């Protein structure tokens, strides 16, 4: 492939993934309200457009029209930097996720993954960790005790759960032998989904994913009953919108990551299509279906399980999940040793 085609193709792909993330996040807000409503025997938003389909647009417009308030006592630059970082890191994570099988065209191969870096998983973890800065800086710059408390909660929670999350992934990496997300997905064709080899690892991973995205039952950083609003108490208008939006993008990306690492990504058993374009499209749709299921699962949990207390949260993270994930690594090692894979 010529370099110019390569460049243009990559730029188009980046734009597509960016738009995809934004649109999915936008409609996640709608889906969240609908799911909440349906689980509570209500109808949810249904006035803007048919079935309320235009509701996210109306919400976005509302966010833009709201008065922009920057508190006098806040540190102005940090105050603006906070949501920017949160949004930036949220958008950056989609880069290493393979959205579908590569398209074998006449002029070369077009992978539906922006870049298949060989340390894809480490990249993901690195970028997600920077996301903490967005929250921490925002909470600190607000110069408000509730915002600061929320930010401290968020950062200590995210740092704690990152440990368990990383450890749960190590067992997965031992079995797959690679850090590249693209390769991990490619290995799982047919029924070889990692969930069957790493059920415990998946359980730990999904619990940590809930904690990392600050979703219920780990949504203590924005616990309204104690903290007014949490780390974004002082935020208004679209800056608040960015924080909320970043949370939904994170949710989307972590759903995609779970689909990729444990549920075979774009692979689905019994589906073998040889027409290259169709294969890519079907693969993409399968991937989206899995992702959407996990997004639904996030919401389903949110409207079922109440919030943890903070000490319970820390106990669960340090005293249960970390030992469990170490145990998981040991068991994986022993089984691999017995099967003479190492």
């Amino acid at each position: 492939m010529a370099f110019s085609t390569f460049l243009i193709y990559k730029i188009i792909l980046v734009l597509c993934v960016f738009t995809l993330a934004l649109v999915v996040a936008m409609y996640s807000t709608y889906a969240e309200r609908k799911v909440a409503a349906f689980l509570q025997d209500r109808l949810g938003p249904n006035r803007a457009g048919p079935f309320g389909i235009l509701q996210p647009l109306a919400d976005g417009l509302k966010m833009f029209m709201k008065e922009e308030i920057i508190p006098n006592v806040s540190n102005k630059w940090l105050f603006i930097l906070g949501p920017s970082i949160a949004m930036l890191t949220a958008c950056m994570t989609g880069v290493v996720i393979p959205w579908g099988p590569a398209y074998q065209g006449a002029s070369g191969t077009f992978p539906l993954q922006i870049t298949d870096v060989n340390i894809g998983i480490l990249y993901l973890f690195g970028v997600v960790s920077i996301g903490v800065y967005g929250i921490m800086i925002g909470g600190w710059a607000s110069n408000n005790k509730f915002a600061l408390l929320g930010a401290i909660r968020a950062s200590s929670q995210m740092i704690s759960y990152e440990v368990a999350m990383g450890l749960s992934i190590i067992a997965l990496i031992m079995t797959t032998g690679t850090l590249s997300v693209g390769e991990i997905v490619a290995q799982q064709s047919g029924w070889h989904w990692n969930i069957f080899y790493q059920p415990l690892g998946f359980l730990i991973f999904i619990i940590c994913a809930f904690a990392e995205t600050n979703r219920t039952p780990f949504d203590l950083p924005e616990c309204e009953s104690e903290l007014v609003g949490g780390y974004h108490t002082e935020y208004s208008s679209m800056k608040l919108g960015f924080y909320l939006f970043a949370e939904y993008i994170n949710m989307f990306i972590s759903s995609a990551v779970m689909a990729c690492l444990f549920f075979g990504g774009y692979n689905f058993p019994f589906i073998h299509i040889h027409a290259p374009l169709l294969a890519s499209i079907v693969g993409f749709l399968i991937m989206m279906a899995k992702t959407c299921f996990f997004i639904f699962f996030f919401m389903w949990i949110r409207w079922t399980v109440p919030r943890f207390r903070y000490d319970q949260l820390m106990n669960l993270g340090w005293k249960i999940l970390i030992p469990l994930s170490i145990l998981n690594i040991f068991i994986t090692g022993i089984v691999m040793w017995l099967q003479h894979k190492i």
Partner: protein
Amino acid sequence: MQALTNRSKVVVKKEMSLAEKLYLPAILNGLKITFSHFFAKKATISYPEETRAFAPVYRGMHVLKRDENGAERCTACGLCAVACPAEAITMVAAERKKGEEKLYREEKYAAVYEINMLRCIFCGLCEEACPKEAIFLTDRIVPSDYERDGFIYGKDKLVDPIDKPIDVSVRETAEVAAFKKDKEYAHNQTWKDQVNTRKSGH
């Protein structure tokens, strides 16, 4: 102690079993319960399109009725305004001119008749007081408004439209008519009636 319902559970403080300590079975059970509601019948009533039936005694926006010939029944006697505990009603009376018999049933009529819907408490006492069967509370709802002025309803909003009269048959029953004519009640007696009863020694 006797249980009030069969849903009550005896609470025992005991060590949690392993399954309970794991929390996951409980969470799965919770997920099952919430999901069962996903397809359940929704309790919401989509208001403007769907409405609930009002109770037969519901008291909403007033109507000033016309008689069978289309003439306004109200004679501006002011009894409704006197009866009103919220002092919501004001009116200006006028004398019927020649040729206006089609418009007003009585010789005196209300040129201006206003109800302040922000003051009104929808008690229905005006309806009870009216000797001419002119004012009724209906099952219509007073809509909201941005301005206070909009809540002062004049005759344009209150008087029965000629082409499609408001149905008040639920409230204008035979019992009501009988009650309004029954001379036993002081409010149905004229001055002459009262003199007569006094003469006859009651």
